[in-house]
């Protein structure tokens, strides 16, 4: 086994980081930039997860030679793509933070700047947000392609593995934002994250989870039809040594339990506090299940 926990932790956190940014951006842009605060919360939440992923990856390679990655660019090599995408994304987010700080400073001290600093920074951060959005799609989109561009049957037999990882990245990204939003709203009212926003996010995640379930079924059917080594690899997941991890860790925690809890929340009258617990539990379950998906696929491919 050459790709161990460092790789699946990396795949999960990088996916979740990209997914959270993606979700935060879409909420903001689809509401006509009314949820800028929420988008900022999403970005501030996503970036540390991206950094955790990079640190996990560094533990798996010769860290002293990391600079070799920065003196070459190979578009057909996924780790080269990852290097540059992560670098661009983290840089864009960092510059965006600076733009927000300047905008905030200009808003509070309007006489400090002779020109319209607030408006200028607002425009710049908008452009950066768009760039970050495009890059975030490649960031979480590439994780499945990394595994698919190999010679191992579980990973390379069907192009649906990248799709499965992408859907899971968005699902876990939304779940992360739900958990963070609930923690914020339970402690402060200063940041304008409404209950309705959190509930709609949870609803969006439920739809994404249904899509994820369908992609998973198609992925499994494809491998079963392909048979041979791909079929054997699938059996290890469904009935073999990884079965508990697959069924309980991934299927139950990432798919079935969250859908059940979301249905309970949607169709049963309950107090706000209970609803928050139900939504929070569902989201936490999705996040843990996302780690299990990466683990089960990363390990299963190398058996």
């Amino acid at each position, binding site marked *: 086994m*050459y790709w161990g926990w460092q790789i699946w932790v990396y795949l999960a956190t990088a996916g979740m980081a990209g997914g959270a940014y993606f979700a935060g951006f879409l909420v903001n842009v689809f509401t006509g930039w009314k949820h800028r605060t929420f988008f900022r919360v999403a970005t501030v939440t996503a970036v540390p997860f991206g950094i955790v992923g990079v640190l996990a990856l560094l533990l798996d390679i010769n860290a002293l030679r990391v600079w*070799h990655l920065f003196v070459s660019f*190979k578009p*057909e090599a996924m*780790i080269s793509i990852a*290097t540059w995408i992560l670098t661009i994304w983290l840089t864009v987010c960092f510059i965006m933070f600076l733009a927000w700080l300047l905008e905030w400073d200009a808003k509070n001290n309007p006489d400090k700047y002779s020109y319209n600093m607030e408006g200028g920074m607002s425009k710049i951060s908008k452009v950066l947000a768009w760039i970050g959005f495009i890059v975030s799609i490649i960031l979480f989109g590439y994780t499945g392609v990394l595994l698919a561009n190999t010679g191992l049957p579980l990973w390379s037999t069907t192009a649906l593995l990248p799709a499965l990882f992408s*859907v899971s990245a968005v699902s876990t990204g939304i779940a992360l934002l739900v958990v963070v939003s609930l923690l914020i709203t339970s402690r402060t009212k200063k940041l304008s994250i409404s209950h309705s926003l959190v509930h709609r996010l949870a609803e969006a995640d439920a739809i994404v989870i249904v899509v994820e379930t369908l992609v998973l079924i198609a992925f499994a059917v494809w491998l079963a039809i392909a048979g041979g080594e791909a079929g054997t690899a699938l059996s290890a997941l469904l009935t073999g040594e990884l079965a508990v991890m697959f069924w309980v860790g991934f299927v139950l925690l990432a798919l079935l339990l969250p859908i059940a809890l979301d249905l309970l929340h949607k169709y049963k009258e309950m107090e706000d506090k209970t609803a928050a617990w139900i939504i929070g539990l569902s989201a936490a379950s999705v996040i843990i299940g996302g780690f299990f998906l990466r683990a089960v696929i990363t390990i299963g491919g190398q058996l």
Partner: protein
Amino acid sequence: MSKAILFDLTKCTACRACQVACKQWNEHKAEETSNWGSYENPKELSAETWLRMRFIEVERENKLDWLFLRNSCMHCEQASCAVVCPVGAIFKTEEGFVHVDQDWCIGCANCVMACPFGVIHKDHHKMRANKCSACTSVGYNRLADGKEPACVTTCPTGALEYGDRDELVAKGLAVVDRLKANGYPNAYLYGEKELGGLHLLEVLDDAPSVYGLPENPQVATKDMVSNWLSSLVTAGVVTAIPFWLLFKRKEKAKAESSNRGGA
């Protein structure tokens, strides 16, 4: 000039002198192994074992045949390991052999996952990948001195030959024809066409699958476009729909209803 190594199983006695020569020339340590019911030893290749002989038992016409096969890097013309290497540490020598630059490898192991033959391995202590270099490793380069690879030089029966690839292909095909004429209709020269032509050619007396070799090996990035499409369409379009439904449309509906209310 494109070079190659030809393995002719009709001459091989599986004495494993090639295995020992490989270890000795490259100064690789012996690995502790245990009996697992086969003469194959070690059981697998590793970053310190670049060549091993395979012993395959096959039942043919109610009698047991014992087949031998060289197991090492196949030195593909279209080498997946080189394609996926993010830093360009894996490259082809002028002879056509695939070489891992030990001073440049970062140990990401992407090449290990991409190799269709499972021959490249990562050394966890040195944090870099390694495999048969056809004796072109820095400090151990026999070809630069006009010598043959150590395994070829040491082979006592001439089952291993080193030379111009075109000549060895012709030689291998002649052996295959002889085998076919002598009751081995499935005899095959593995490496003539696979992956753009391998620089390790293997004369087989049966189909590749009998020897556990992939019938139609593919470059790891062959489905790159469909993999990206699947990923990006799902990511950028499918997962964006719920947001459009729940935020864009609801926001619009809310605005419309408040407009009506105002009027």
